[in-house]
């Protein structure tokens, strides 16, 4: 990545404000997710409202950043690393916004479970574990973006397989549980939706990391299997 300044200092300022807005948005999404996990573990239904409110801010930031990207392209016609940065940012914010939506889904699932008077204690540990893993992925992906470190981005991408495996394991456990005791189906289904949302957060973190690799190296590493087939 290029550390040298542009001839136009305004261009440098525009790019750096774009980057800091992305990190600000990422920070909000991280908070949404960690709050949702806390709410799940501790049964804090009141936190749901907070997560939904944060989501509004995240959505507004997504729109603002996309708008800034469009203006920057129109005004500056960025090329090479600048173009990759702007293009990558526009994709990163989409994934961040969706990760935020998943946090909202978790929060709503938590509310349904606790308001029905059910306690997901037995499976709480598995969920908490996968959630921590997905959140770490997102944190590292944002860190890789902040430092434009494609090595760290690659580690995030590799970590996604573990989250996927863990998700499948939780699914198996819950299916067994539901078969053993059909009265738990409603709650188990809610927990499955929560696990699914967490697994999706991992996918979004992986996407962010892939965009970081594109920004830094200009390589599009998405869908490797498909490319080999071509």
């Amino acid at each position: 990545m290029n550390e040298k300044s542009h001839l136009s200092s305004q261009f440098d300022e525009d790019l750096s404000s774009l980057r800091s807005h992305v990190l600000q948005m990422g920070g909000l999404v991280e908070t949404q997710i960690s709050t949702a996990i806390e709410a799940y573990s501790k049964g804090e239904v009141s936190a749901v409202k907070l997560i939904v409110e944060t989501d509004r801010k995240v959505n507004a930031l997504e729109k603002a950043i996309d708008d800034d990207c469009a203006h920057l392209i129109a005004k500056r016609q960025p090329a090479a690393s600048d173009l990759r940065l702007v293009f990558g940012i526009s994709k990163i914010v989409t994934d961040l916004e969706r990760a935020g939506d998943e946090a909202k889904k978790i929060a709503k699932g938590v509310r349904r479970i606790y308001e029905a008077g059910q306690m997901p204690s037995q499976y709480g540990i598995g969920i908490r574990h996968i959630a921590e893993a997905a959140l770490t992925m997102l944190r590292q992906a944002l860190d890789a973006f902040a430092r434009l470190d494609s090595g760290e981005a690659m580690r995030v991408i590799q970590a996604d397989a573990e989250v996927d495996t863990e998700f499948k394991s939780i699914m198996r456990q819950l299916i067994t549980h539901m078969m053993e005791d059909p009265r738990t189906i409603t709650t188990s289904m809610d927990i499955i939706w929560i696990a699914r949302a967490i697994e999706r957060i991992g996918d979004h973190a992986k996407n962010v990391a892939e965009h970081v690799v594109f920004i830094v190296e200009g390589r599009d590493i998405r869908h490797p299997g498909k490319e080999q087939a071509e």
Partner: protein
Amino acid sequence: MQIHDNPTLKAEARNLNFFYGEAKALKNINMPIYDKKVTALIGPSGCGKSTYLRSFNRMHDLYPGNRYEGEIRFFPDNTNLLAAEVDPIEVRMRIGMVFQKPNPFPKSIFENVAYGLRVRGENNKRVLDDKVEHALKGAAIWDEVKDRLADLASNLSGGQQQRLCIARALATDPELLLFDEPTSALDPIATGAIEELIHELKKRVTILIVTHNMQQAARVSDYTAYMFLGEMVEFGKTDEIFIKPKDKRTEDYITGRMG
């Protein structure tokens, strides 16, 4: 988008050096020019891109003290354009040039385009009519001038004059067209017309274009070469150069980080 076809060579610079007297303006340039493709030369002022362009039709021969080293091979006949025994006039029959400012002759529209043919000894009225019409159509200006071919070329607008100059260059059926910043004196509409024309022209002729407008290079060319201080820093597919240049100096230039 990838360029899938395997292009054939139209010309190739091999270890090309050029001297204005003692000053070395081109330093060991090696570069292919592919047939029926547009190749853009970009770089800051004084980097040698115009010097390089002008070597192709031996423009430098006009001034004493200028000296070439190395070769520019021209295909399919594998002629070295710079060889002393090659007649510059012959070279210019095969390689047309369009300059920064439109430079029509102080003659009628028709005679401007017919000029190169007349120089070649063509005087048959019907042949001239046909070829002039064909060239004017090729330069996308026929509809605008067909009813006033006898008018002075200088009465045309700047953009029209530039297209007339392209028609003049096309009339002798050149194999390679050299454009030296062909739109820098034109407004955006006329520029758009020329760029559209370049896109059409490459179906029949190879184009080498010098431009200061990087977006123009990105829009019109298949290949781009970045030159700096007389050196060819990077040559590659335009799609790659503008997304992921290999050389840091190219990156700095096209992202506007040249200080």
